[in-house]
């Protein structure tokens, strides 16, 4: 799959922003007044900034309002509704803390759970794709949720929770990669089923339908850079999980905490790039490519 910058930025920053909103809503930290204003501004910049970035890959972003209508079947529609609901509820909760120095506990809990709902509905957009066997697995939503609450815990400075969640995240990500490596083959879709010619013999793509490229090949067949995936996996684990945990376990210092956050973000950006670049769509089979 083509790793589009807009979608990688959306997944990374919105995940962190909604993770932070989750912890704020649950009351893991209860800032008031100016402090609350700063915390909520950071969370909204991340969450909303990512959502805005995601609209850059649309052909007609001006019609985005229509995407709220098909929640009965479409995970993308559910994600949109969930995001607006979470942001409105958390704005009410935040306003209570900033202006009235009052914690509306129930509002916060509803908003916090809805924030996780956004991350879950996002992950299901990918996990539902039967055409991308690597994504169609329980590890996809599990990893999205774990990264979001882990990153949120890191941003909100909860040392022990962040340490535990990021360690779990590293283990789950390694499992997701290794189990994902064999999933395309295990899906049973291959050139023989794609063409229905397997009963004659082994099928090989002889001539493509066109001399140039096309939308399908640009969007679904991404081979460049995949050869570096082993190195990028190590970089991801190092930056997203190991380095932040080490920095957290050192005696607390604001510079180290900032470094931990920056390292985590760089790591998650790499992780998301791999999430797309390594995912193989079955349509590539028609072109004899993956």
């Amino acid at each position, binding site marked *: *799959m083509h790793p589009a910058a807009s979608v990688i930025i959306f997944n990374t920053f919105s995940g962190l922003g909604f993770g932070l909103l989750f912890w704020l809503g649950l009351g893991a930290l209860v800032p008031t007044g100016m402090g609350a204003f700063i915390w909520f501004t950071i969370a909204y910049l991340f969450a909303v900034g990512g959502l805005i970035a995601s609209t850059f*890959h*649309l*052909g*007609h*972003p001006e*019609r*985005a309002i*229509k*995407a*709220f*209508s*098909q929640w*009965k*079947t*479409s*995970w*993308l*529609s559910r994600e*949109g509704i969930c995001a607006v609901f979470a942001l409105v509820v958390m704005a009410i909760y935040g306003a209570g803390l900033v202006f009235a120095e009052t914690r509306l506990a129930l509002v916060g809990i509803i908003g916090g759970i809805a924030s996780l709902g956004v991350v879950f509905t996002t992950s299901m*957009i990918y996990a*539902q*794709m*039967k*055409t*991308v066997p690597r994504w169609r697995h329980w590890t996809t939503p599990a990893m999205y949720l774990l990264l979001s609450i882990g990153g949120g815990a890191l941003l909100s400075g909860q040392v022990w929770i962040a340490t535990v969640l990021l360690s779990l995240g590293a283990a789950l990500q390694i499992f997701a990669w290794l189990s994902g490596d064999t999933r395309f083959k295990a*899906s*049973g*879709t291959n*050139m023989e*089923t*794609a*063409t*229905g*010619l397997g*009963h*004659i*013999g*082994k*099928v*090989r*793509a*002889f*001539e*493509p*339908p*066109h*001399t*140039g*490229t*096309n*939308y*399908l090949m640009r*969007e*679904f067949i991404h081979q460049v850079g995949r050869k570096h995936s082993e190195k990028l996996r190590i970089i991801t684990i190092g930056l997203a999980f190991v380095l932040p945990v080490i920095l957290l376990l050192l005696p607390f210092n604001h510079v180290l905490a900032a470094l931990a956050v920056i390292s985590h973000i760089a790591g998650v950006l790499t992780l998301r790039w791999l999430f797309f670049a390594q995912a193989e*769509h*079955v*349509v590539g089979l*028609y*072109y004899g490519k993956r």
Partner: protein
Amino acid sequence: MTQLPPPSAKKLGLVIDLDTCVGCHACVVSCKGWNTENYGAPLSDQNAYGADPSGTFLNRVHSYEVQPAQGEAQLIHFPKSCLHCEDAPCVTVCPTGASYKRSEDGIVLVNESDCIGCGLCAWACPYGARELDAKEGVMKKCTLCVDRIYNENLPEEDRQPACVRTCPAGARHFGDLGDAESDVSKLVAERGGFDLMPEQGTKPVNKYLPPRPKDVMPEFDVLAPYLEPIASDGKGFVGWLDKALSSLPGGAK
């Protein structure tokens, strides 16, 4: 609505004969010709006369080489367009309701004025039947020439998809695959028509007919046995020369 309608009795679709297709791409050209100036936005091209041309097509012809366990490899031309699946995954993922399946005849269409160009339907399609037009920013796909097949302004023989009408080999057939007595259904039953990627669970309406087994030519030339190479291993000077040359580095074994 992007909820799929209950399966329609009428299932319009194509039957493509892989035995007959000669790979001329006439269906590709006629499809682009008709659909760029009729239903919905035109099918744009980018850099059409440049070094890196690209464009939107609703129908493309691949060619595959199939190597049986024994015997010669076969070359099979393979036209591919939307299969108008009964369980169309492209329809249910659409967030706006732009993508829909008609309850009356099962044709899968895109309402372009509702399409936000998110591309998710193309992700969900295992067949590569949908292409986002780079100029218009909306999703394009085969309409089964919905603006021809019911069009009473056209002569009756033209009321079929442009690809079917134009195919010089008669490799494309259009009809109601929901009616077991239709010509296309009988053809599918007779020739063992099959689905593409049945394991994806999309239940395609379009069917493909397999290439017929190749004829095996009987030996009929009475002189042929006399034209076989005689010496498999040479004797005398020729034999010595053969061995000497073979023993040189890079020599034939």
